[in-house]
């Protein structure tokens, strides 16, 4: 059964950072590289975060491979922006799993020892440094979850896919993805509670906290 990428109004179809991905996708299909650039700038950060959870330090390479393939195939893509987003994550995931098999390992430190250097500061070096540390810590916490839970948490609560779309990316049933995400969040809560019990202090996390998605 071939899944279809029909029109929908779910989270996957929502603009990313206010960018209208539908127009960007249409432009890319028509051969306009500005459309590709817009898609890349909008979706690559999400792809990278997801890949850091799945494949650790190889995330950048895998993301590059993913986009190179997408660039070659995008003219043939039929479907809407939501479908493209799902397709892109699926390509990324498959490439990541290939990479893991090649390297004979599961994810490691999701950022490596020197990756913090890549997080360039801008206007508020101190504030950005704190925020980046919080993000790194958050991703490390998620990466420390069992793999299926980590991926479900990332796709559902960080990237923002609904259960059905996350399930298509992961090749699972939506119910299984919901369960994995829920367990992942519980696991995460347990980890945080244990850290609190041990008096572990971390950088303050971003104040613009949204609710925890189910």
């Amino acid at each position, binding site marked *: 059964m071939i899944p279809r990428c029909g029109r929908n109004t779910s989270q996957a179809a929502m603009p990313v950072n206010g960018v209208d991905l539908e127009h960007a996708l249409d432009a890319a299909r028509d051969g306009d590289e500005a459309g590709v650039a817009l898609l890349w700038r909008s979706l690559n950060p999400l792809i990278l975060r997801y890949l850091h959870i799945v494949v650790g330090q190889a995330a950048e390479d895998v993301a590059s*491979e993913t986009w190179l393939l997408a660039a070659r195939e995008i003219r043939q893509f039929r*479907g809407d922006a939501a479908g493209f987003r799902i397709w892109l994550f699926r390509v990324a995931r498959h490439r990541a799993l290939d990479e893991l098999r090649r390297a004979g390992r599961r994810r490691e430190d999701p950022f490596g020892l020197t990756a913090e250097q890549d997080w360039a500061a801008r206007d508020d070096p101190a504030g950005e440094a704190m925020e980046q540390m919080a993000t790194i*810590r958050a991703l490390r916490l998620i990466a420390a979850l069992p793999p299926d839970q980590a991926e479900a948490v990332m796709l559902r609560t*960080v990237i923002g896919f609904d259960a059905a779309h996350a399930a*298509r990316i992961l090749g699972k049933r939506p119910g299984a993805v919901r369960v994995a995400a829920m367990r992942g969040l519980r696991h995460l809560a347990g980890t*945080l509670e244990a850290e609190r019990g041990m008096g572990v202090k971390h950088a303050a996390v971003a104040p613009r906290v949204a609710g925890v998605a189910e």
Partner: protein
Amino acid sequence: MRGTDLEVAEVLAAARAPTYDQDERVLARVLVAFNAAGTGLAAAPARLGRHSGRSVRPAAKVAAAVALATGCGVAVAGLGVLPTPVQRLAHDVLGGVGIPAPDKPDVERGAGTAASTPTSGGSGVVSPRPSATTAHDLTTLCETVANNLGDWRGHLDASDRAALIAAAHGEPKVAHYCTRLLRPGAAKTTPAPTPSGTATASPSAQPNATHGVGHATHSPGPNQRSSNAAKQ
């Protein structure tokens, strides 16, 4: 426990924080690949399997050379769909048996390789077939494809196949090309009326989830979109 929930929410918010700086050099490479694909330079399937984008072109060259060295190479070259350098080589070596040059316009390829100059005199000689590369004829060819998705090749003669493949920039793209051409309101063409439903019968470029976690050797790609496409 509410405090822990809040912490979890904070962790998730931190994970979402848009602080990742992107390497624009990657974007530059992506755009190069995109433009190359648009010009047909990347006509080979963009499969990132074991070679994973590292060196697809050398592999394609070797494959083309092997194909040329075998009988099927002649057939493929006859269609004029090999990469330009290889097609030129094939033309130089095998031009006598009708292998077209790579830079011939589609019209010439579509009209076959009979090396006949269209007779313009009123000698009553059979006039050449209309060029297969007009929008109308391509539409007709695409209708044939749409009506015979499983074995459209068998329903087109060699010159029509070549014209269609050239217009689509590669055989794997024929189905998609025809889908676009037959789509109501398709731009730049004047498609003939299409049989109802034919436009949607062609494969779509959606992801194909036929393999799961344990079978990720092939990236899901638009070209894997349906069994129909795979068989074409």
